[in-house]
């Protein structure tokens, strides 16, 4: 076993971002190691999605830098995109295509393996009913659409996952399945940055939680050996910061 600290894969160095004339991130700092699950919590409009978009290079910081494996995101966005699988906030895939076609399309776009067997095994993993797979997404419930989005993120086989509210719309069983899936992926070395509103779910899977409020990091929680992060503590801090 290697005892040196794992190298950081995602780093936010005093990220400051303006959008629409307002400062929406102010000096945000965090660092996520390889194989770590980092959950970013915060109220509506706190800047969570903006943080993900900054790591994808779609939002340019006014100061500070977002790094992936030490390299500034804005130096070579395409190179970053190759290492990252992104699940957008509203995982709107194409409504006129069915689940398999959507996955086939996006995987081909990513030049990733789009074999039917692989696609079906991912859809099994996220628990999308086999009978639904050949139906157009316009006939899906929100949760079913979300499952297809998660399947896509997994199928990308990327070393880094940027997930924006992956569990929104999922039923409790699906949330549990998702949580164990993410933990398993992290166990294999995948680095996960996950935005969520679900404090208890975050504490179950994440070894590291950041609390964002009005663009500022107001809380930083880490699990200690053997002890998960206390959901009550996070919840208290969350509520306090909103007072």
């Amino acid at each position: 076993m290697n005892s040196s600290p794992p190298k950081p894969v995602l780093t936010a160095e005093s990220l400051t971002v303006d959008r629409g004339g307002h400062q929406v991130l102010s000096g945000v700092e965090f660092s996520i190691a390889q194989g770590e699950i980092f959950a970013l919590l915060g109220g509506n409009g706190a800047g969570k999605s903006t943080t993900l978009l900054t790591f994808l290079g779609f939002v340019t910081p006014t100061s500070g830098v977002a790094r992936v494996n030490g390299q500034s995101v804005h130096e070579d966005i395409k190179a970053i995109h190759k290492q990252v699988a992104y699940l957008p906030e509203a995982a709107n895939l194409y409504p006129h295509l069915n689940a398999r076609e959507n996955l086939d399309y996006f995987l081909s776009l990513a030049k990733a393996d789009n074999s039917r067997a692989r696609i079906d095994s991912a859809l099994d993993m996220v628990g999308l009913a086999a009978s639904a797979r050949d139906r157009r997404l316009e006939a899906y419930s929100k949760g079913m659409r979300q499952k297809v989005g998660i399947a896509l993120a997994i199928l990308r086989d990327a070393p880094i996952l940027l997930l924006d509210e992956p569990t929104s719309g999922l039923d409790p069983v699906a949330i549990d399945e998702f949580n164990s899936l993410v933990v398993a992926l992290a166990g294999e070395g995948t680095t996960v940055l996950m935005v969520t509103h679900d404090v208890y779910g975050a504490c179950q899977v994440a070894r590291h939680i950041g609390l964002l409020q009005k663009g500022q990091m107001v809380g930083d929680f880490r699990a200690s050996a053997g002890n998960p992060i206390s959901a009550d503590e996070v919840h208290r801090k969350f509520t306090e910061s909103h007072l």
Partner: protein
Amino acid sequence: MGNLALEVRYALRERVVIASLVLAFAMASYAVITGKLEVDEQRSEISTLVRETESDQDHVLGQQPDAGGAAYYVHHVTYQPPSALAFAALGSRGELPWQHRVRMLALEGQIYETDAGNPALSRLGRLDFAFLTSVLLPLILILLLYDLDGRERRDGRYELLSATSASKGSPFFVKAGARTLLLFAASATPFAVMAAFVSAPLGPSLVVAAVVALHLCFWLVICRLVAVRFTQASSSATVLLAGWLLFSMAVPAAARIVVESSVPVPAGGELLLAQREAVNDAWDLPKADTMEPFVASHPEWRDHAEVTQPFEWKWYYAFQQMGDEFVASESAQLRAGITRRDNLMGVAALLSPPLATERWLTRLAATDRAHHQRYIQCVRGFHAALREFHYPMLFGASEYSPEKMAGLPKYQPCDE
């Protein structure tokens, strides 16, 4: 390339894409079929004319006692046969006469007489393949492309698409390219089928397809430039429609106005009247007023030019020819003016790809101004040959006999 195939495959799953392709295919089919019918009709009109004129000639020639009557009563048909590709671009065949029945009389008037109206003209509303591809097709492309990015943004797929795409270029450019390619295929297929059906030459047919493809590429680039600048669907649609109006309507119309006002051209009708007057006046003038200038420009007839009777055919034909010479400079001006205007419109086409497309297609179909001018020159050449044939008999340098009329020149189209 792989991505293009992917985008083509999935674009075909979109209802708006299918509807646009069906529309383009239907319009292109309509255009090439009606174009073919029109050309067929012109061809059969030509062969009827040729047949009728020949039997008419046989009938008339048998009854002529002298060279003057043989030259006077016979009509000749001249025509510009449609090229194999004319079905795709009717061009001048839809607006200018492509056949003239001529006699040995003064020619210029006979050429410009029909300018006023040709019975076969503008039978169809001019939705030919050239008009479709130069003016209407860009509209369909705009419809397909104006909201390509906007819709993905609104639906929250923009970032996912950009972040997922593993190729260097923008995935939206490939999406737009795929739609452009499909639209090209939908409109070029009916053309290709018709070109094969009428055995049009392969090279020019391929160039037609290339011109259409190039024109669509121009609009593809315009659509991408606008889509990148204007992310709102309504503003990108407005800008693109304004661009379409500018390139396919405003620039050609303005160019036409500027060119026509800066290059004055004598009207064909005026030329006709001037010639008629000159010919009519000759009746009342002393014969020498016609014959002296005639032998001055045609010295080969000097020894045969004496006119002693009140009416002699050679005098009659001499003043017909002098009528042509009377308006020769106007006629030359008219020709030069038409050519100059046409050349200037060619320069203006550099500012308007739709105009350039239309011009290229009519050129490939031999239905442009230059080909029409060549046809008119061909008529002049034929008429000169008629004079050359008749004059020795009219001027008494050789004896007239009805049998000699077997050697009467027959019109042959000059080019194509």
